[in-house]
């Protein structure tokens, strides 16, 4: 290393030193101790006692954990694609030359600003089985249908019914999708006009243009949103926690990995067990990200690469 290189290294490290300290204190050390505690019986009030892989063995036999895992996976598998689909559709519609685009964009974006606790309280109210706004809207077509066909369809009592509770949560996610709309819209504006024009000359319609031009160009942005959505929905906590009044919903239908981790750490004082859940949560995110990455290498189209 030359003197100049050494000096650059020193300057560079000096500039990133806040991050290095933060990384060591709030990431590397906690992750390492999380792994260590996951092999211990530990509750902050008494010292950690190593118990081997007992926590993981218990987890494997813990149906509640499997419920939480299933709920988390189900929620992610529904909410992420649905969110991206809705955001994409709205962005494509907004990309048309129509009056009031700016107003629409603001309208779609606003809900994503709503703080999570407000979001939860608000949707708890909207999803109320009897006087909730959503069911009052749904009841209009349902009643018409019932009158017509003699059926007895009724809107579900969302958050009180184990079968529908997670869908209630999905609504809140889809409603807060405005962030992605803005990102997609920005991505759409980068699509070279000439691509569309030449496609039109070839007689391509709206769907063909969307499928063959828009989506490939947007693919890196979609990929990025997938990854971020994944990391976000795997750690979903605040909204279900608040919606259920600090609980886990009917028949644990709103128990997620982060909720179960929290319960074990701060309600049951099984912090070692909580750490084991944390380690699994982390490995899951890692695995899913790697899978997405390898998929992206095949399907994501990077301009100029």
């Amino acid at each position, binding site marked *: 290393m030359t003197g100049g290189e050494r000096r650059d290294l020193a300057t560079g490290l000096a500039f990133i030193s806040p991050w290095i300290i933060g990384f060591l204190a709030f990431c590397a050390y906690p992750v390492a101790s999380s792994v260590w505690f996951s092999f211990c019986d530990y509750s*902050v*009030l*008494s010292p950690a006692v190593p118990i081997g892989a007992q926590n993981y063995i*218990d987890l494997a036999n813990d149906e509640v954990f499997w419920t939480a895992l299933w709920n988390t996976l189900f929620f992610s598998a529904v909410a992420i694609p649905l969110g991206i689909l809705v955001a994409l559709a709205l962005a494509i519609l907004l990309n048309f030359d129509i009056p009031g685009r700016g107003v629409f964009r603001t309208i779609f974006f606003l809900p994503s600003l709503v703080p999570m606790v407000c979001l939860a309280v608000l949707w708890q109210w909207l999803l109320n089985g009897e006087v909730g706004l959503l069911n009052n809207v749904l009841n209009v077509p349902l009643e018409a249908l019932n009158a017509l066909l003699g059926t007895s369809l009724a809107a579900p*009592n969302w958050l009180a019914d*184990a079968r529908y509770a997670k869908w209630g949560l999905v609504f809140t996610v889809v409603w807060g999708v405005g962030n992605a709309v803005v990102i997609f819209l920005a991505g759409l504006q980068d699509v070279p006009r000439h691509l569309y024009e030449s496609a039109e000359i070839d007689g391509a319609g709206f769907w063909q243009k969307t499928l063959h031009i828009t989506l490939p160009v947007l693919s890196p942005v979609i990929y990025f949103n997938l990854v971020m959505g994944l990391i976000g929905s795997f750690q979903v906590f605040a909204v279900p926690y608040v919606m259920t009044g600090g609980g886990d919903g009917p028949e*644990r239908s709103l128990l997620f990995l982060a909720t179960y981790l929290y319960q074990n750490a701060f*309600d049951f004082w099984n912090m070692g067990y909580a750490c084991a859940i944390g380690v699994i949560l982390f490995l899951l995110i890692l695995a899913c990200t790697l899978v997405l990455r390898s998929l992206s290498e095949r399907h994501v189209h990077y301009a100029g690469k």
Partner: protein
Amino acid sequence: MSRKPFVSLWVRGLALATLCALVAGVQAAPDPRAGRVVVKYWEKWNGFEADAMRAVVDDFNQSQNRIWVDYSSVSQIDRRLMLAIAGGVPPDIAGVWGLSIPVYSENNALTPLDKLAAEKGIGPDRYIPVFWDTCRHEGHLWGLPSTPTTLALVYNKKMFREAGLDPERPPRSIAELEAFNEKLLRRSPDGGIEAIGFLPEEPGWWNGLWGYWWGGEMLRDGKVNVGSPEIRSAYEWVQSYPERFGVRELLAFRDGFGNYASPQNPFFNGRVAMVLQGVWIHNFIQNYAPPDFEWGVAPFPSFDPARHPDVTLADCDMLVIPAGAKHPREAFEFIAYVNSPGPMEKLCLGQLKFSPLATSSPEFLARHPHPHLRAFSDLAWSPNARRYPVTSTWTAYQSEMRNAVSRIWSGNADAGTALATVEQRQQKNLDRAAARWTRMAPVLKKLWKDTSP
């Protein structure tokens, strides 16, 4: 983008923050407590129950000039308190639930009070036995009672009369309860339920403990005992509800129920005639039931009243000193004060409850507005006055029981299956806690012996 909004935003933000910090600083300025030891006291109550305790705190603060109790109501106290104790910043006194004693003490979260209580001459003879027992765990005293409750059958006399039942003759066995239930049931023309005699799910706060009225035990010899015939039969009774009345119909019926503390409470607006409730129901009836509401109280019927008469759950709220509290002696001064006859009766009168002390003064009983106070306080003396199961895993056990009832209720599992799930999960949990306790007990017991103040 111009730089103006950026800079001005910052200036405004900083100015506002400074202002708020100043306001906060001014508010925190102490005056009447100068020269006194300030004892921080967290209580879970809010509303009129908090006010009743506040009056006692004020009396205490005025009665002497050495200690100042700084009282505040804390929502979701279980979580907050454990976090504060774990974080090393506990209050000096906390008002907690009686059922929290095992889990708190086994986690080394409380200060043992044996010596302090002995110094003040506080012993078992002062209390109704079941409440003194609630204060103790693993051979140590962990708290002293604040206000108690028992559970009883509370029923709507008007609905009884309208259904052709004698309003002075409540049911005395589960079989009778169900016979009354049939008579009190009203259906709408389309088959929906309009009113019912009794629903285990309303309010359903003790869904984990129905077995008590069958003479069952939730724990036996360190084993989860839900497989026993008594408990099983209790939950088969729960299961009979969705079977008899229909899952959908019950769900639709319960959808129309308003909040507990509101005139839409189904017991207050005549949709449910009988409920299992605590002594506090009087206060809610006064506030939310119609003025002509007529009600009676009786022991909740057991399955076999000859073998198990007067079954109840007796529980009391508890004043404890968290581990790591800065002023345990001063904190105990206050706890002992609350547990002397005068202040205790003032507190219980304010909260409209009976006293946990073995004797109540005639004035207290004469002044007390609760029309059925004796019905509740007599139950506390019953040999079948039961406590919450004594285990540090009860929180998890209880939520598992609730989950089981929720499965039974929705028709997704029968009682046997649901209870088997509980047993399988909770036995593991219990074993785990037992193993943990075996490891920690010698260390902690020595610690408690050596360091108790």
